[in-house]
């Protein structure tokens, strides 16, 4: 029982980071109709930028963290402006190819600047674990969940209550009607990419602190696919719940199944879920069935 609890906790930690990255992915999909295959690389870039600021430029961690968010937002803005905006109205397949290309470019850029070696963050959070009843939780896990939850909360409130957030949801709902309200759809697209880059960067920094940093962090980002398919491609709450579930499933697979089969299930399970969900519930648990028309 304690073992299961322990697994679930680490599942929630990782799942909350998936949730964060999935939120960005869904946001771009909802607002602009684009499937962003570069979402994982946003995470990689965030992790490396923050690490460089902390380790190479000796910034205090909190400052580096904030600075990385600014860099991420600028990157999102730039990508939308330079790469995506000229593609408005082009066939969806071209736009998907573009995001795949973008992911290679970002990965290549990171390789060029920082090289292929594994790196680790200097120790930022105390390593003294915290005991909660029978379970032991490392402090970095607590911080990580706390941060992921904080950002999820901020954006949930943003979409619910701020005028910009409501305008974004309106645009996702009916683009032409949004234009007729005087909403600048271009600005909404830009904002979607900025927010997606920002939440992914936060995710990257958190994962980087837990697992270390290397060029394959982008694979971590790939896990958003099972998460968003599970939750429904166009549902933000779905993305959050999907992320958490995938995180927990992974942890359970790692704890119970991997010892029996000699490992690997942890990596496979999310994608098995993806296939099953696509077969039995193609719109996920919270997605709109209308989605096919898009």
């Amino acid at each position: 029982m304690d073992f299961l609890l322990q697994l679930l906790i680490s599942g929630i930690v990782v799942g909350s980071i998936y949730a964060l990255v999935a939120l960005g992915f869904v946001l771009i999909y909802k607002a602009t109709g684009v499937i962003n295959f570069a979402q994982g690389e946003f995470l990689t870039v965030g992790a490396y930028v923050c690490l460089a600021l902390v380790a190479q430029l000796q910034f205090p961690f909190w400052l580096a963290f904030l600075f990385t968010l600014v860099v991420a937002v600028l990157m999102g803005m730039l990508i939308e402006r330079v790469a995506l905006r000229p593609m408005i109205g082009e066939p969806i397949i071209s736009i998907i190819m573009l995001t795949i290309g973008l992911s290679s470019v970002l990965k290549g850029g990171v390789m060029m600047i920082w090289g292929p070696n594994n790196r680790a963050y200097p120790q930022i959070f105390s390593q003294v674990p915290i005991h909660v009843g029978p379970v032991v939780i490392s402090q970095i896990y607590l911080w990580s969940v706390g941060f992921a939850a904080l950002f999820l909360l901020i954006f949930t409130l943003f979409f619910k209550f701020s005028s910009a957030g409501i305008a974004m949801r309106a645009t996702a709902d009916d683009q032409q009607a949004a234009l007729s309200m005087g909403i600048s759809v271009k600005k909404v697209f830009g904002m979607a990419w900025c927010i997606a880059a920002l939440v992914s960067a936060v995710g990257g920094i958190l994962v980087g602190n837990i697992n270390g940093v290397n060029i394959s962090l982008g694979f971590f980002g790939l896990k958003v696919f099972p998460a968003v398919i599970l939750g429904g491609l166009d549902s933000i709450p779905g993305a959050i719940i999907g992320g958490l579930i995938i995180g927990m499933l992974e942890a359970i697979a790692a704890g119970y199944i991997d010892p029996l089969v000699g490992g690997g299930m942890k990596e496979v399970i999310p994608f098995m879920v993806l296939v099953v969900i696509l077969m039995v519930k193609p719109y996920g648990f919270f997605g709109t069935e209308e989605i096919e028309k898009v």
Partner: protein
Amino acid sequence: MSLLSVNNIEVIYNDVILVLKGMSLDVPEGKIVTLLGANGAGKTTTLKAISGLLKAEDGEVTDGNITFMGQEINKRDAEDIVKSGIFQVMEGRRIFKELTVTENLIVGGHTRKDRGNIKRDIDMVFSYFPRLKERFRQVAGYMSGGEQQMLAIGRALMAKPRLMLMDEPSLGLAPLLVKEIFEIIERINKEEKTTILLVEQNANLALRIADYGYIMESGKVMMDGDTTDLLNNPDVKEFYLGLSDVGQKKSYRDVKHYKRRKRWLS
């Protein structure tokens, strides 16, 4: 001088499809002007040319111009045009289905600078449409057609426009509701001093609340006049009001015959 004037415009979709061929109309401040015509005549295109929404559909004003309060607006973005005081209530209501009633109204006021008054104006909209007030937290997509039309008009009120463009607000509504909606359009015109350009299929009702009417066919105006004159015009009676001299209903199938006669008349 008119609040809005459309001068001899030509509109082309996708660089090839010529839809408006020298369309002109004038909307004086404070009035209700109605634009009538059969399906496909180009009424919606005219409204979208004014509101700037054409550009999002690959349509373009290629000749003529549109002025609002003396300024040429046909090259501006939809966003700027809304900010300058023109608001289009689109055909088919187009409410934001996933948003609540209140959120839809907030989006209506998106371009307003005086954000402090949003709350007050939501109450103003609720006073026009008490039914929306009862449903203020409901997700708009689940409301009935009539309620959605009320919301679409309420959303326009939130923008406090000088000129409201309405595209077939009666479409698909039960007769009683249509009457209610038209009464509210009249009230908005009187109480909010909003000038209205009303596109309608329901010529009968539209001519009764409007001051002036245009009838268009194949991309241009073919008849216009004070609504009292139009209501008494035998051609209009026969083909747009659906009443011939003997008072029986006629259908649009007769429009062909009408065109033939028109040519002969001119």
